[in-house]
């Protein structure tokens, strides 16, 4: 995979230490963008101060009926949030699968970063914890 070199650099929100320098660890380029997309998906409306529309309301969908219709709504929601808030990314494909038995949705999002020709992927299992 051709990798873009350090165009993007970001803090890693896990705040782990770099084992060599002891400094806070960072993420770069593709990794940085993937984490950003992941952050957007995991952010709910009204979570960030003074930016009520930032994020996707995925939490709310977990309390809906597990069905193909809900899965389709989640798919739309994901497309909206990424298109609105992550300009570095163009979506290749969003796949949301309702797993009725596990009471969960499997989300597979593949997208292109900038002019990169090979897609990157984010895989999340959305599941209620209560």
């Amino acid at each position: 995979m051709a990798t873009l070199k350090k165009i993007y650099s970001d803090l890693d929100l896990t705040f782990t230490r770099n084992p060599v320098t002891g400094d806070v660890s960072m993420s770069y380029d593709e990794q940085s963008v993937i984490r950003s997309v992941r952050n957007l998906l995991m952010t709910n409306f009204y979570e960030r101060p003074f930016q009520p529309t930032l994020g996707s309301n995925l939490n709310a969908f977990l309390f809906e009926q597990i069905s193909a219709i809900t899965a389709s709504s989640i798919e739309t929601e994901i497309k909206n949030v990424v298109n609105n808030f992550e300009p570095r990314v163009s979506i290749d494909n969003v796949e949301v699968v309702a797993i009725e038995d596990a009471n969960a949705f499997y989300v597979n999002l593949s997208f292109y970063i900038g002019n990169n020709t090979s897609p990157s992927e984010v895989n999340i299992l959305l599941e209620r914890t209560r």
Partner: protein
Amino acid sequence: MASANSNVQMTGLDFQDIKSNMIRFMQGQDTFKDYNFSGSGLSVLMDILAYNTQYNAYYLNMVANEMFLDTALQRSSVVSQSKVLGYIPKSSISPTATINVTVYGVTQSSLTLDKFTPLISRAIDGVNYTFLTDDTLTVNTQSGTALFENVIIKQGTPSKYSFVVSTASNPKCIFEIPDVNIDTSSLTVSIQQSSVNTNTEVFQLATTHLTLDGTSKVYFLQEGLSGNYEVYFGNGVLGQKLMDGNIVRVSYISTKGTAAHGANNFSLIQGIGGYANTTIVSVTAATNGNEKETIESIKYQAPKSFSSQNRAVTKDDYITVIQQNQLGLTFDAVNVWGGEENDVPVFGQVFICLKPAGAYNITETQKQRLIQEVIKPISVMTVSPTIVNPDYTYLKLNINVIYDPNKTTQTSAQIESGIKSAIYGFANATLNTFNSTFNSYELMKTVQDYSNSIITSEYDLKLQKKFFPSLVTPSTYKLYYNTPLDKGMFLSGVSSSPSIQFRDPSNLVNIIDGIYVEELPSPTNGVESISMLNPGSQYQSVPTITILGDGTGAKAHAILSGGSIKNVVIDAAGSGYTAAIVNITPQPGDTTGKLAAGVVNLQGKFGTLRTYYNNTSQVKTTFNQNVGVIDYMNGIITLNSFSPIGIDNPLGQFTVTVKPTTSIISSSYNRIITIDPYDANAVTVNVIAKS
């Protein structure tokens, strides 16, 4: 576009400003490049930091606001700032009424009316209010009857609290009285030695600190952070210090403030000294109450109180100390002026005019208490204060309104009552105080703004003076309207109401009822001037001027210039004219002079007032040809030796109505212009629908 910056600007107060400042800072480095993307970890961190910064900035801003009297919003902050200025915010004040109580069938030689004896008023807006006697009174019984005269009663219910002094649990010995409705002027603080030793002493409110020492039995009062009043005591240097185990007892009246204004017709809840056969007569209805001082009022009063330094020297000092009196008197308006400003200067005196809340005048006792207890202790020794009553001039307004019924859903009666209340609101806002001016434009705007449906409106203004003539002694009354008055014409001159009774001078046993005062155009009027309507032309010689009318003796001559009459000079004013015309006749032989015309102006600075009644045949009959004088120029009516023996008004009030020549009416010194809220005819509104 803003350039990158190596320093973080922390000047913004808004979240967005703070965040943009951070982004500008991030632009100056290249370690983290994702600051502009909402989903990045850096953006999440910047949001948290910006929110925290904004929160602190807002908090600090509010803290700074609350630190100054001008900007503080919280009551506790304003009160705390005013404490530095030595100002105690005023509490609610109980409305006060006066009654006479008669107790019948008393077998003892004297009878005592206890302090805080409860009475109940007749309902106001469906609520009966409890009133309490102000003090303990004892009178001697006469023929089995005990009469308590001019008993002062205050609205409220008695309350009391007691606190045990304990430096362990309350080291500052500050005792909060948990009642927002307390009237602090009724507060009594007494200290009992201990639960075993019941020796009790009454402590006084400390008003000055100059005379205090370690044994002074005083308490201090302040408003606490919770908005309740707090009582605290001396530290052994300024005021006596309390000991552990002392019991602080406070008793006071808890009042409903102005809600009970106007209460009268009281009845006792229980008998007096076991005697239930009592009658109560109201002398004055409840007035002079007030609500707890507002934040705005504290902000206004506290700096003024501080600047007067508890001394009455300047005009504002007097106004401030009177407004802040601890006697429980409240005033809508206070005006003060030096005696040297009077029409007849009086040096060495300060004149004070007071408009009490909810009443017209304060009583003589209240005046004496104000002078002796409030003003004298802090005024300059050689200046003598004099309290004068306000001189009220009442406006009587007749408003005509034409409205379009298609533009409103209101009936004409609704419009009428709506306009009336708007006018009373206008009067409360712009009149009713000293140094005010009646603004006819504002009045018409008030009427016009009431509804879009009003097409046009007009007003007719009259002025009234109201007084209480003596029914025993013939007296002279001077009524100052302070504006020029219209000379009498039909239905627009001086009139009086209600009807009065006089004894028939020809037979003193007879009483004549239904007598009124009216204006009599002066019978001694002469001609003052002649105004030319047309100077005429081509007069060859001076024409003859002849004045024709119901009087005699007026003479005048013309002055000719270029064949026209330039002027007419009065040679003799004559007398007895009520109407006159002028004839201008060319001399015999003058064949060309023509067209000159003029009009006669009659004299009349003064008029006479007379009384009349309708006799048994309903014929208008003059009762007394001359009861007084009307000075039109200065607006003064004088009633000489006015001696009615009865007035058809339950209060004995007599009203004299006049029409001013101008609608610009101003007040100064002790004069107040107002619309009488107790007179149903003070404002009449005629509403006519446009057909």
